[in-house]
């Protein structure tokens, strides 16, 4: 059966077009993203100086830094991670070890996946309703709870996934030695999944450290340095948001420096997480 040459030619032409399209859009996408990183670095480095790490956020026209926002971000993220790790590891363990094929288990699994990508601003509104409105004050605690709600589903998901990777024989041998199930989980399964759970935790940390929307109505902002989590608290993303929208060039420069700090730390944490997850892979 002869194939007409024109058919071959048109298929070839179609292929060339397709390949050219793929190469072109990859180039465009990488260029756009490189452009963003370039402006982030070039604008941010100019604003970086020692003041950033020693002074609090200034009024326009006076020198200042971001130390209150940096400390606030770290405090709230760490508190959020403590809550999220507790809930996430326990919930993930339940899904992997106790839920089995039960109906409730699959409902939790499904809704956890939905919560994983729910709009963060709605989480902020929810925490406002339950922790800010009743107590009549914005607080660092409310901020951490909002962030914890964003981190917990990620940790739940990873914990479940890595626990399921553990061989059943491991559980059986633990039980055969006479250990109660919860002992097996604690001393064998969790220990064997440490690097996986840690990866999930780091990814969750990277995600919440850049979140702005859930903090707007929970932690609000604070012009001054503060360790008090029961009061309004500054955070890097919120300070960036407010300073970027002012017409003052010095505040804008501060916002760029803050954005560079956040992006750099998020990238660093993500890279560390990837290094962790790559190691035990056979």
């Amino acid at each position, binding site marked *: 059966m002869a194939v007409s040459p024109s058919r071959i030619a048109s298929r070839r032409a179609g292929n060339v077009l397709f390949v050219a399209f793929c190469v072109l*859009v990859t180039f465009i996408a990488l260029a756009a993203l490189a452009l963003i990183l370039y402006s982030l670095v070039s604008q941010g480095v100019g604003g970086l100086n020692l003041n950033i790490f020693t002074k609090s956020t200034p009024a326009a026209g006076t020198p200042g830094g971001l130390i209150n926002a940096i400390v606030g971000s770290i405090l709230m993220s760490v508190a959020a991670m403590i809550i999220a790790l*507790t809930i996430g590891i326990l919930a993930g363990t339940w899904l992997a070890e106790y839920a089995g094929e039960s109906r409730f288990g699959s409902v939790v699994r499904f809704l956890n996946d939905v919560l994983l990508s*729910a*709009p963060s601003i*709605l989480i902020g509104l929810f925490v*406002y309703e339950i922790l800010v409105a009743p107590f009549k004050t914005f607080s660092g605690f409310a901020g951490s709870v909002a962030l914890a709600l964003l981190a917990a589903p990620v940790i739940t998901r990873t914990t479940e996934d890595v626990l399921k990777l553990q061989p059943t024989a491991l559980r059986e041998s633990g039980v055969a030695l006479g250990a109660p199930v919860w002992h097996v989980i604690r001393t064998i399964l969790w220990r064997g999944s440490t690097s996986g759970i840690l990866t999930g935790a780091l990814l969750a940390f990277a995600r919440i450290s850049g979140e702005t929307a859930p903090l*707007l109505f929970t932690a609000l902002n604070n012009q001054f340095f503060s360790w008090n989590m029961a009061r309004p608290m500054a955070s890097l993303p919120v300070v960036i948001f407010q300073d970027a929208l002012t017409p003052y060039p010095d505040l804008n420069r501060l916002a760029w420096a803050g954005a560079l700090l956040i*992006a750099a730390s998020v990238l660093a944490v993500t890279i560390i997480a990837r290094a962790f997850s790559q190691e035990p892979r056979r």
Partner: protein
Amino acid sequence: MSIVLNAPPRRGTPRGATFEPVFEGLCFGAATALLVALGGVLVSLAIGGWPALSRFGLNFITGVTWDPNPDHEVYGAAGPIVGTLITSAAALAMALPVAGGVAFFLVELCPTFLRRPIGTAVELLAGIPSIVYGMWGLFVFAPFFAAHVETPLMSAAPPGSFWETLFSGIPNGSGMLAASIILAIMILPFMAATLRELLNTVPPQVRESAYGLGATTAEVVLSVTLPYIRRGAIGAVMLGLGRALGETMAVTFIIGNSHAFPKGLFDSGSTIASTIANEFNEASGLQSAALIALGLVLFVITFTVLALARLLLRTQVRA
């Protein structure tokens, strides 16, 4: 001499077994807490938004006037709702072909030594906080867009034509189209990374047999691998859409924040998330209820999209 057994032999209980139900209860409690949290979001939004919903009824969704002036308060959210849908749909339409192209390039065409670095770069970029995209949009993209796209297009449009309506607005770089473009750039790495992961699940035999039959790269991708991952791909697209719908910071910087119904591509508009972010802290009473009701609308929209996405994705990979 005889040994008197005064008790029948008992099996020993393992040490710590009494704590077993407590531990299981704790785990169960944590899982339930997640469920309660999601339910709590829905319930608290419904309760908080009820005053506005009951007062305006269906007009809350169809009305185009958003006026917080206490003398004649009216809240009609059609502007933000339509703004959300249009910017997300436009962002998806722009990002999808590009994300697909990037994923196909990485899986089928890319030289091996570049595959890892480019793939890693795409995945890392998916983690950059959205506020960074927003800032870039405001300070770098908007001035460029105003000078090199908006102004030329507006002056080129013949007066009175369809084009003039389409390109109407203020050429200051912010507006509906600009926000859509920034959103598209933001969801691009995420969608590309998910699609690539899906393409990698296609068994090599399937792809190789297609090549063995003499298919070109385009034919392999479009008629073999893409149909193979069809369901998962739709799920990935809807996850991207879910992100775009709920995105706050990247949009708030650049959409122009006007509640009116957007008339043209360059016109200022608003989305649900940007409206809440801008007004909630200054709002009280009915306005704050209206904003929470707006949140409820967003919750319903995104929940539907995300639930569909997860149902479709579940069968392939857990992305």
